[in-house]
């Protein structure tokens, strides 16, 4: 068993920064559910600190607690003292993985297959995507559902089946040229991150992102067959693999020759902006990673920063509400920009969603690892959408997009029947200008 104690070696002031005032409690979805301190941010930090102080063993119970946490980072928004919970939480998950307190054969196998194999190999991920697409588009999926094939599977696995994302017919590389030049340049050149799930299930949103950038005078560079950004690995205790993926991402762009690296998935963006910390010990990459962090911009953040052009045509929608991706609002503090974009679209009537920044339960792979708690949060989200009573909800992260779409589909009749994204609506508005 490896002897290095990650929580002991972490900069103690990060742990100590928590003054246990409790202001995070009412914003933590797991604490609000159970009202138990161990299910709260300050409770979890106290457990981490107890491990760092040698007062608590790394146990199965500790591991369970770290995986019960959504990692939504709502606590970071609420924290008066600016505790870096993301770093603590990733370190704690790495600690419990290293201590191997949680290992069962099955869990180990699935973790290895997904984290070490599939999400480390962009070509393999896309091959799987192609196969899944064939399965979904040939009617085989419908047939399997019709004959209740999934009834034969363990219930936990069968429950996940409807959540499988619908795979796009074409991936980003088929839709986006490696270098696209705007008709009227404003002198900006940006790199585009196409993501992994985003690329498989929402390549159209990547296309929309390029169109919106072009319409705002940005040249767009899109490297081929991109890797996973490593957020999945970092959030699941595999920091070494996350570092490897970070180096690959950095290598795929010529950082000196782009003004920004654009990400359009909230969850990825939040992680992409922390490569500097992740690689701070790496003699070759530390400086590059710092430069990288400065250049990574969420699409909404970038558009507002360059004073994007307000469209003159509408997007064909009326009332729209907005669900905030946790890692966009809490992780990246990008709160007003997506709203500004929605409000800029002629004819669009923006209406706030109650609890818009409360996690929808998607939370990376949380809906797979903690289906019960995930479902409770999804129900809460669907209910809030009902309260809003608006036909369209926009969001900005593939996980949230899939989760909410699944939630709405499952409840049959619901006033909200369309899930979209702010960039898609903006791209539609720009396209409508052309047709007008």
């Amino acid at each position: 068993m490896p002897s290095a104690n990650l929580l002991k070696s972490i900069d103690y002031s990060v742990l100590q920064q928590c003054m246990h005032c409790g202001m995070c409690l009412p914003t933590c979805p797991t604490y609000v559910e159970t009202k138990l301190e161990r299910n709260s941010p300050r409770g979890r930090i106290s457990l981490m600190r107890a491990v760092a102080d040698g007062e608590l063993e790394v146990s199965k119970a500790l591991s369970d607690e770290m995986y019960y946490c959504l990692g939504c980072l709502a606590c970071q928004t609420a924290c008066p003292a600016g505790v870096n919970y993301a770093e603590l939480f990733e370190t704690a998950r790495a600690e419990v993985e290293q201590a191997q307190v949680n290992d069962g054969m099955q869990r180990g196998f699935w973790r290895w297959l997904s984290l070490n194999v599939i999400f480390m190999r962009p070509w393999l991920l896309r091959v799987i995507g192609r196969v899944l697409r064939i399965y979904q588009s040939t009617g085989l999926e419908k047939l399997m559902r019709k004959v209740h094939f999934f009834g034969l599977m363990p219930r936990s696995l069968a429950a996940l089946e409807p959540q499988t994302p619908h795979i796009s017919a074409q991936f980003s590389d088929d839709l986006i040229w490696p270098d696209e030049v705007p008709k009227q340049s404003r002198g900006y050149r940006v790199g585009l991150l196409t993501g992994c799930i985003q690329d498989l299930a929402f390549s159209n949103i990547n296309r929309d992102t390029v169109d919106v950038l072009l319409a705002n005078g940005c040249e767009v560079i899109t490297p081929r067959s991109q890797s996973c950004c490593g957020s999945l690995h970092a959030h699941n205790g595999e920091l070494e693999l996350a570092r490897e993926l970070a180096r690959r991402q950095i290598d795929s762009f010529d950082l000196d020759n782009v003004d920004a690296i654009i990400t359009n998935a909230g969850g990825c963006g939040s992680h992409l902006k922390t490569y500097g910390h992740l690689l701070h010990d790496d003699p070759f990459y530390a400086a590059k990673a710092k430069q990288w962090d400065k250049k990574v911009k969420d699409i909404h953040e970038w558009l507002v920063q360059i004073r994007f052009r307000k469209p003159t045509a509408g997007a064909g929608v009326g009332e729209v509400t907005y669900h905030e991706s946790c890692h966009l609002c809490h992780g990246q503090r990008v709160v007003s920009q997506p709203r500004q974009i929605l409000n800029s679209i002629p004819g669009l009537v923006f209406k706030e969603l109650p609890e818009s920044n409360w996690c929808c339960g998607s939370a990376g792979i949380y809906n797979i690892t903690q289906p019960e708690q995930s479902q409770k949060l999804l129900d809460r989200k669907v209910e809030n959408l009902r309260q809003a009573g608006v036909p369209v909800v926009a969001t900005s992260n593939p996980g949230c997009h899939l989760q909410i779409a699944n939630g709405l589909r499952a409840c049959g009749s619901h006033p909200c029947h369309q899930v979209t994204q702010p960039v898609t609506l903006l791209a539609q508005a720009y396209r409508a200008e052309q047709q007008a």
Partner: protein
Amino acid sequence: MNQIEATFIQSLKEILPPDRVLTSAEDIVPYSFDGTAALKQRPGAVVFPLTAEEVSECVKLARRNNVPVVTRGSGTGLSGGSVPLSGCLVICLVKMDKLIEVDEKNLTLRAQSGVITKEIDDAAAKVGLFYPPDPGSMKISTIGGNVAENSGGLRGLKYGVTRDYVMGIEVVLPDGTLTFLGNKCVKDVAGYSMKDLFIGSEGTLGIITEVILKVLPRPKARKTMLALYDSMDAAAKTISAIIAAKIIPCTLEFLDRVTVQCVEDYAKIGLPTDVEALVLMETDGHPVVVEEEAAQMMALAKANGARDVRAAADEAEGAKLAAARRNAFSALARVRPTTILEDVTVPRSELATMVAFIDSVAKKHKLQIGTFGHLGDGNLHPTFLTNERDHEEMHRIEIALEEIVDETIRLGGTVTGEHGVGLAKKAFLKRQLGEGSYELMRNIKQALDPQGLLNPGKIFDPRN
């Protein structure tokens, strides 16, 4: 360590279902502290009753087994009042969270102890009513904790503190007796005002399980203003002038120079960093009166030497002006790993003297102290920015605190305006109270809790 006995745990599980009795390390380590810096102690067990009867059964059991009991709400206290004793039983009331009744005819609200303070005011607001006490932690603090600590807030000058809104309490006494003190009557002189004994008793005399609160009609309008000063004296003079003009503002908050600088570093809201004091003022009530008072307050601020005075046109602008005050604690808390929030309070007329004294103490002992607080009621929050692992600096803080406490008492003030004595202020209590009243308090504790089971060692040491 005083280990809790297995048989005792077993008996607890006969009173409460096992999932409401926590004993494993992972479950109870997070109950080792409250919101107070540098204090922690692991309890023996944590239980979650849902009813006053269950609380009573737990207390009776603890009494039979001679196990000390510490009551806790959300654990946001700032004087160590709910920090456990090693191996004690923690009775956590957060699951007693039923809001029982809003009585519009009698202007009262009845709730179990574990209801969150903000939910109390939200429930009142739904029917146009108002629960004024607004401690800084109101989004998560429990009403039971507020009553047990007699919490304050920003509206002290005009609206008073928690005590002024408590009409009745249900309480479990140290022997397990369940009783109700007070009622919905505005007038009630039937015997001693027993409820008042328990308000602010910090869990040492009984466990409050339910409260009846007074609520008020909600003010229809509010106006926010911000004034900047080159001297603390000028700020203090403005406040005296406002009160002399027979205006009682609902908010009179100030930030000193260090705090303003930290806020600007953190929140970048465009504040000049060379001001000596920033004052946030609000008046609320009937719209016409509010307008008139606001104009008067601004004129008085200018006449008394304010460098700049601004008034918000609407709620949104008001929120912008209030941003500096709202960010004060956050801004200070980020500067160093440990933040020690103090709570000394002086008569309003001595406030400028006290702020200057704190400033001189900081310079003398080479410490970072940001002071902010409530100008209207003289309640100051000198905030020490430090690192609890730097023992040498912590020692200097101790000396500085001694000096601040002595000066507070000399000026006729109190060592704690709204945080309570708990563990943090215990050493100073006798100095402030004097022998007579200190012993009177201990006699009361002795009479109600002869076994010394409820929150022993808080406020004062137990008698042998």
